[in-house]
C-alpha cells in the first residue's frame, strides 16, 4: 500500500463508514484541504459542516451535533484545536461528555518552517490533563485505520493527533502478508521484541506517533551491536497502558521515551510516573526543547534534536552504561 498520511486514512475510514452510517458528521474550520477531508465534504455534503476559521465554534458546534445523536469529527490543525479551542474541548466535549472526536492534524512540528504558532508541542500535556479526554497518537496509517475503526464504535470524547506528512509505515510487514495487526484499543503495541528465546532485552524504548518508526529503526541498529531493545508503541497516551510498561520495563536496565512534544507533561512524563512507582530505574525522556523549535522540515528538525534512529540508539547506549 505504501505511504499514506494518517489524516488521509482517517478520512478514508470515515467515508467507508458514512456509506451506511448517516450519523457521522465531519466538521472543518477552513481545514478540509489540509486535513485531507475534501473528498468527505464532496461525497457527503449533507454530513459535512464548514465553520470557517473559527476553532472555538468548530468544537462547540460539534458538541451540539453530538448531543443530538451525531458522531462528530472535528478536523483542524492540532496547534489551533488544542489551544484556541481548549476550553471548548474541556467544557463542551469532555465535561459535558459529548461524542466528539477531535482530529488534530499536522500535529507536533509538522508545519516545520511555519514557526511556533503552527506547532503543537503542548497538546499531549494539555489534552491529557482534562478529565474524560482520551489522547491518541497513532504511529502509521495501518494503525490509524484500526484506531479510527475502533473509535467509531464508542460514544466518548477523544483527541487524535496525526502528522502532516505521509510517513514510513511501522507495521508494513503485516500489510505485506495481508494480515491484520494485533490491535486492541488502549493496549500498547510492541513492534520490536527485545526479549526472545535467544536473548533478553537490555532496554525499552517507549515512543508514540511519528517517533515509533525511528525507535524501531534504532532497535535494528542496536541489534547489530548486540544490544537488544523492546519498542513499545504507546499510541494510547491516555488511557496510558501502564500494564505493558510495567511488564516490559520491569526486567531491563533502562528506559528511553521518545515523543514529538515539549519535554514537560507529555508521554515521557507519564511513563516516568509509572516506572518510578512500579519498577524504579533509570528513565530518559527524549523530546523537543522547551524553546521555539529551530526552523526546518520535520526531518531536519528531528535530526537536529537527535529524534532519529541514530539519536535514539545513542541515548539507549548511554542509558545502559
Amino acid at each position, binding site marked *: 500500500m505504501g505511504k499514506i498520511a494518517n489524516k488521509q486514512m482517517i478520512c478514508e475510514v470515515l467515508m467507508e463508514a458514512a456509506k451506511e452510517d448517516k450519523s457521522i*458528521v465531519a466538521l472543518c474550520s477552513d481545514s478540509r484541504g489540509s486535513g485531507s477531508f475534501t473528498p468527505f465534504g464532496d461525497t457527503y455534503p*449533507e*454530513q459535512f*459542516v464548514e*465553520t*470557517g476559521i*473559527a476553532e*472555538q*465554534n468548530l468544537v*462547540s*458546534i*460539534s*458538541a*451540539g*451535533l*453530538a*448531543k*443530538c*445523536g*451525531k458522531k*462528530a469529527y472535528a478536523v483542524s490543525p492540532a496547534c489551533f484545536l488544542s489551544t484556541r479551542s481548549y*476550553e*471548548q474541548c474541556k*467544557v*463542551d466535549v469532555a*465535561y*459535558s*461528555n459529548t461524542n466528539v472526536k477531535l482530529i488534530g492534524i499536522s500535529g507536533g512540528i509538522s508545519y516545520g518552517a511555519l514557526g511556533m504558532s503552527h506547532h503543537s508541542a503542548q497538546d499531549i500535556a494539555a489534552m491529557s490533563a482534562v478529565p474524560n479526554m482520551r489522547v491518541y497518537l497513532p504511529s502509521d496509517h495501518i494503525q490509524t485505520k484500526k484506531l479510527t475503526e475502533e473509535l467509531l464504535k464508542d460514544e466518548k470524547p477523544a483527541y487524535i493527533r496525526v502528522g502532516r506528512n505521509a510517513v514510513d509505515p511501522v507495521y508494513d510487514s503485516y500489510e505485506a502478508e495481508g494480515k491484520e495487526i494485533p490491535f486492541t484499543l488502549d493496549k500498547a503495541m510492541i513492534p520490536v521484541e527485545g526479549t526472545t528465546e535467544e536473548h533478553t532485552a537490555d532496554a525499552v524504548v517507549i515512543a508514540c506517533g511519528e517517533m515509533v518508526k525511528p525507535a524501531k529503526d534504532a532497535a535494528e541498529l542496536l541489534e547489530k551491536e548486540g544490544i537488544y531493545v523492546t519498542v513499545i508503541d504507546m499510541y494510547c497516551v491516555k488511557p496510558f497502558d501502564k500494564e505493558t510498561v510495567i511488564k516490559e520495563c520491569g526486567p531491563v536496565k533502562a528506559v528511553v521515551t521518545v515523543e514529538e512534544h515539549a519535554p514537560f507533561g507529555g508521554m515521557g512524563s507519564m511513563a516516568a510516573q509509572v516506572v518510578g512507582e512500579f519498577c524504579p530505574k533509570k528513565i530518559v525522556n527524549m523530546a523537543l526543547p522547551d524553546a521555539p523549535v529551530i526552523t526546518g522540515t520535520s526531518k531536519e528538525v528531528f535530526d537536529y534534536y537527535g529524534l532519529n534512529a541514530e539519536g535514539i540508539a545513542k541515548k539507549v547506549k548511554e542509558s545502559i552504561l
Partner: protein
Amino acid sequence: MNLKALSYKLRQDTVDLIRAGKAGHIGGDMSVMDILVELYFSQMNIGPANMDSPDRDLFVMSKGHSVEAYYSVLAEKGFFSKEQLHAEFSKFGSRFIGHPNNKLPGIEMNSGSLGHGLPVCVGMAKAGKMDNRNYRVYTVMGDGELAEGSVWEGAMAASHYKLDNLCAVVDRNRLQISGGTEEVMAHDDLHERFKSFGWNVIDVADGNEIDQLHAAFEEAENVKGKPSVLIANTVKGKGSSVMENKANWHHKVPTDEEYTQIMKDLRTREEALS
C-alpha cells in the same frame, strides 16, 4: 397556569435555595426568572416524560451562573424534588453544583464558562435541520456575556446556516459584576449588532413581563430563514427593592434582615398577580 404568579413563587424558592446553599448569583436569577418560566411552562416541549425523545425541544443555560433560578424551574417542572435540591445544593459531594451539570435530569449541557451556549445550540439546531426534525433550540445569555468572542462566532454560523429553529435570549439587565455593562464594555447597539450578523432581532421592552415574552417567542417561531434573538430588557434583582438594579447583588446571600424584606416583597407581588 398563572405564570406571572409562578415567577414570583419560584423567585422565593430561589432565594431560599441561595440561603440553603450559602451561595448564589441572586441578581441574575431574579432578572432571568420570567424568561425561564415562559420557556419551560409555555414555549418548550420539555418535561421529565420526554427527555429521551429526539423530538424534544432543547435548552442550554448559557449564563450558567443563574443556576439557582434554573434549578428552581427544573424542580417545579418535576425533574427532581425541591426538597432534595435544597438539601444538597452546593454541599460536599453534591450533583447540584453552582453551575448547570448534565449529570442531573433535565440538563442537556454543562455550562459555567460564558460564551459556550450559543455555538453549542448552533450544533443542536444544525442537527435538527439535517434530520428534518421539528424541535426548537433555545439559549439564554447574559448581557455581560456578549463580550465573549465565541458568542459572535456562533451568531455568524447560525445565520450562515439559516437556523430558524434557533432562538437566543439576551437577559439584558444592564449590570455585570464590576458595574454597568455600558461602563464595563459598551454594547448598547446590540439590536444593530445582531441584525448585522443576519439575525431577526426582537426587542422586548419589559423582559420581566410574561405577556411580552410570550408574544416575542411566538413572533420568533414564525420567522423563517434566519435565527431570532430576543433582547429582553430586564431588571437585575427583579422583585424586591432591596436588590433591584444593584451590581453588588450579582453574587450575594441575603442577611436575615434582607431575607425577611425580600421574601415579603416577593410574596406581595405573587399575591397581587394571583
